[in-house]
């Protein structure tokens, strides 16, 4: 079964809306990551964490908060969603090196 799962898989919200994306991993990995993927940019790191309660800032953190509640669960929060945050969001986990990705969440902000 899938070791990194994401929910929801698709989400539509309006400008100014509040959105939470969820990620769970059953790999017993320490590191978890949130990326966004946009055409022409590849994947860009938003936030990451190396354990419960820890949060590190990535390369494109503006407009996003994240929280790592347990080793398994990592959440991405958009408190005032904007159309520029329309994107495909991926969660990943790693122990030391190789990163393993979830299936992605497509978010549309109208």
């Amino acid at each position: 079964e899938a070791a990194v799962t994401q929910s929801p898989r698709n989400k539509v919200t309006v400008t100014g809306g509040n959105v939470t994306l969820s990620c769970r991993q059953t790999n017993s990995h320490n590191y978890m990551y949130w990326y966004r993927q946009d055409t022409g940019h590849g994947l860009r790191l938003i936030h990451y964490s190396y354990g419960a309660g820890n949060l590190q800032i990535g390369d494109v953190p503006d407009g996003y908060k994240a929280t790592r509640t347990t080793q398994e669960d990592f959440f991405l929060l958009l408190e005032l969603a904007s159309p520029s945050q329309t994107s495909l969001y991926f969660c990943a986990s790693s122990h030391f090196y190789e990163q393993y990705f979830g299936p992605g969440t497509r978010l549309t902000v109208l």
Partner: protein
Amino acid sequence: GDQVEQSPSALSLHEGTSSALRCNFTTTTRSVQWFRQNSRGSLINLFYLASGTKENGRLKSAFDSKELYSTLHIRDAQLEDSGTYFCAAEMLSGSFNKLTFGAGTRLAVCP
């Protein structure tokens, strides 16, 4: 800032032929990972390299940290190899385990 430059941006191969994808790094890199994204959007980890070469079936990857590049060779291409290939670098100047991705190479394998 630190960049990862992938080439070519797009590639079309006939079944049974071979080719190579390349990533150039603008700064010293600890390690590189290669991923394939399929038509459903799923990202699969193909290789992790801190040095040298690795091979898995028809795929072979090399990483030259001194010359700041990595390659992914695809031998005897099959239809299921189609997808977008990304390299991602763990820069020496960055945090441990933090990856910087290239923009990807879109590969189409044709009958």
